[in-house]
């Protein structure tokens, strides 16, 4: 589904991604962990086409297409979804109107307002939100937790092929985390891949990954099948991996 090779990116003249290689197959869930500043969120944003970052090298193949050649909205319409770490506020635009526009943008035939709102309200209730939610302005005045839930709601409505969750667990209490994870787990399927970018292992206990990767200084330095790598990080911290990595690079 996704094949990243040698991906490099800079922001304001600073190289943040220094050559990322990663392959995600259909149906897989990957966890990407790393300390602050390791470039894991940058990877998520570069994949979604954030204009803040400039790609300086490498390739990304997405279902046989050159992902980097596509505009952000094209990437989204072909099924790539980023749950943002800090979703931006868009005053005056209701969630309902916004999601209907986004939903219809990827369909040949538009769904009628009635049908769409029926679908939307089901998802809203699934996430334990009140119906009024759809009339709120997009992220305006939302708490951190509300913003995160709203991201997952969008993911559930838009049903993307490749979901990238950027620090979705931060700002969520345990109950909210459970609800959000349930939502994500329901979406797991043999056709859909999920990349979870996180600082802590916690979220990966709820959404158990097929593979875990550790990022350091703009590179993926460690990859393993299953969740064990994440659990080791939880117990030992990143320091151990850093030392290992430093020793490796010196050698």
């Amino acid at each position, binding site marked *: 589904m996704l094949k990243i090779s040698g991906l490099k990116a800079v922001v304001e003249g600073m190289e943040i991604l220094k050559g990322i290689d990663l392959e995600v197959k259909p149906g897989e869930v990957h966890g990407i962990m790393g300390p602050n500043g390791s470039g894991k969120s940058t990877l998520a944003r570069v994949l*979604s*086409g*954030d*204009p*803040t970052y400039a790609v300086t090298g490498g390739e990304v193949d997405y279902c046989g297409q050159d992902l980097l050649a596509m*505009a*952000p*909205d094209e*990437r*989204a*319409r072909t099924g790539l*979804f*980023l749950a*943002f770490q800090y*979703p*931006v506020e*868009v*005053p*005056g*635009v209701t969630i309902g*109107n*916004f*999601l209907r*526009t*986004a939903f219809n*943008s*990827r369909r040949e035939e538009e769904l009628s307002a009635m049908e769409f709102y029926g679908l939307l309200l089901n998802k809203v209730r699934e996430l334990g939100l009140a119906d009024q939610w759809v009339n709120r*302005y*997009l992220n305006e005045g939302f708490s951190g937790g509300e913003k995160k839930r709203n991201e997952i709601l*969008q993911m559930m409505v*838009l049903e993307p092929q490749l979901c990238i969750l950027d620090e979705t667990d931060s700002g969520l209490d345990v109950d909210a985390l459970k609800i959000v994870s349930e939502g994500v787990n329901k979406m797991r399927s043999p056709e859909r891949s999920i990349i979870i970018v996180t600082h802590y292992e916690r979220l990966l206990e709820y959404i158990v990954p097929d593979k875990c990767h550790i990022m350091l200084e703009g590179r993926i330095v460690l990859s393993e099948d299953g969740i064990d790598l994440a659990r080791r990080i939880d117990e030992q911290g990143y320091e151990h991996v850093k030392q290992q990595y430093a020793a490796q690079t010196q050698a």
Partner: protein
Amino acid sequence: MPIDETTEAGQTVAQPEIGAYAAGWHDADTKYSFRAEPGLSENVIRQISEIKGEPQWMLDFRLRSYEHFLKRPLPRWGGNLGELDFDSIYYYLKPEAENARSWDDVPEAIKDTFEKLGIPEAERTVLAGVGAQYDSETVYHNLQQEWRDKGVVFLDMDGGLREHEDIVKEHFGTVIAPEDNKFSALNSAVWSGGSFVYVPKGVQLEIPLQAYFRINADRAGQFERTLIIVEEGAFVHYIEGCTAPTYASEALHSAVVEIIAKPGARVRYSTVQNWSANVYNLVTKRAVAMEHATVEWLDGNIGSKLTMKYPAVVLAGEGARGEVLSVAYAKDGQHQDTGAKMIHVAPGTSSRIISKSISKGLGRSSYRGLVRVHSGARGAKSNVECDALLLDENSRTDTYPYIEIDEDSASVGHEARVSRVSEQQVFYLMQRGIPEPEAMALVVSGFIEPITKELPLEYAVELNRLIELEMEGSVG
């Protein structure tokens, strides 16, 4: 010379110069039973009055106004009026049509125009009454029987003068004197058409009245005059829509609207102005609000070459409330010089102004407003918020508020902000699959949402649709 002179009557044609302006066709075969010479003279004014068969006092009023118009210099502020040629304008164009109460009686060509604008359809579904003016004269006016039975009067202004001369004589020109400004003097001299609305004590008109103004002829002047009197505790919502064909030469629309809201009354006046880009729209609108009355102006300015319009409320009675919510959209070649005036005369009065403007390309939108609190207006409160959105690198916005406070117990605040559409907002929407132009339009519609949500749904949709249409091609 109209740009589309070869067009057959009634055909909607694309206007390459103006692109998205959908109301830009004109009806080539409209017949006029009277067309005054271009230019203004005492003779033209006497002719207008004579054709209308007016009482002497109205003719005197017109002549007095004309005298002032001649003396009064053009305003030195606001937009550029240097190219406005008063001598080439036709001041009176009477279409060959009587004021009808049924659309069947309206001449086909004119009826077609209003059909295209969706007026008869709206009348059937969402309105209590409709008036339609074509150039200088009203061609259609109707109020549903239910409201006629309750004593509501909704006539064209000429009809109002004929049938209710006493009420008209008592109020006409009392809110806006001819001497108020050059264009109120002009309107007072040559006015024709417009609406006369009278709502008796306690009557609540739950659904709106709508007046529709259409300029059709080249170099036409339209000078409608509206007087709305709402008695104690009554309510009315009056909606005004305006369009014109696109001609190469300038047209002039200069209306005067006077509103009198008696104690406890509430009046809402909504305008969605979508004049073509060759129209000078120079309008004076003012209301007087008595004790505990409320007057709300909702003002959407999308079209015209230059609009200068500052709806005003004189808060004359204790506890009166005034509100102006306005949206302006200016694209290349357009200057929207709009705003509001709140004059606090009585104690306990309050006012609110919210202005949202959008400038695209080389468009210029200016907020110009006045909040004045007179001595003795104890505890008066006023709050003004202006937000400007600049879409392009060279778009222009201005803010010219004037705050004049003569009362120490008043509390007055003004704030203005200028912003552009943020890259991150557009990116966020695009990440959900929405193409860039739509994403921009969505952000813009969100920007004006605080105003559109106050409009009846059909009009909010219309306003958003117009802006979306205008936004097309805004992302290169």
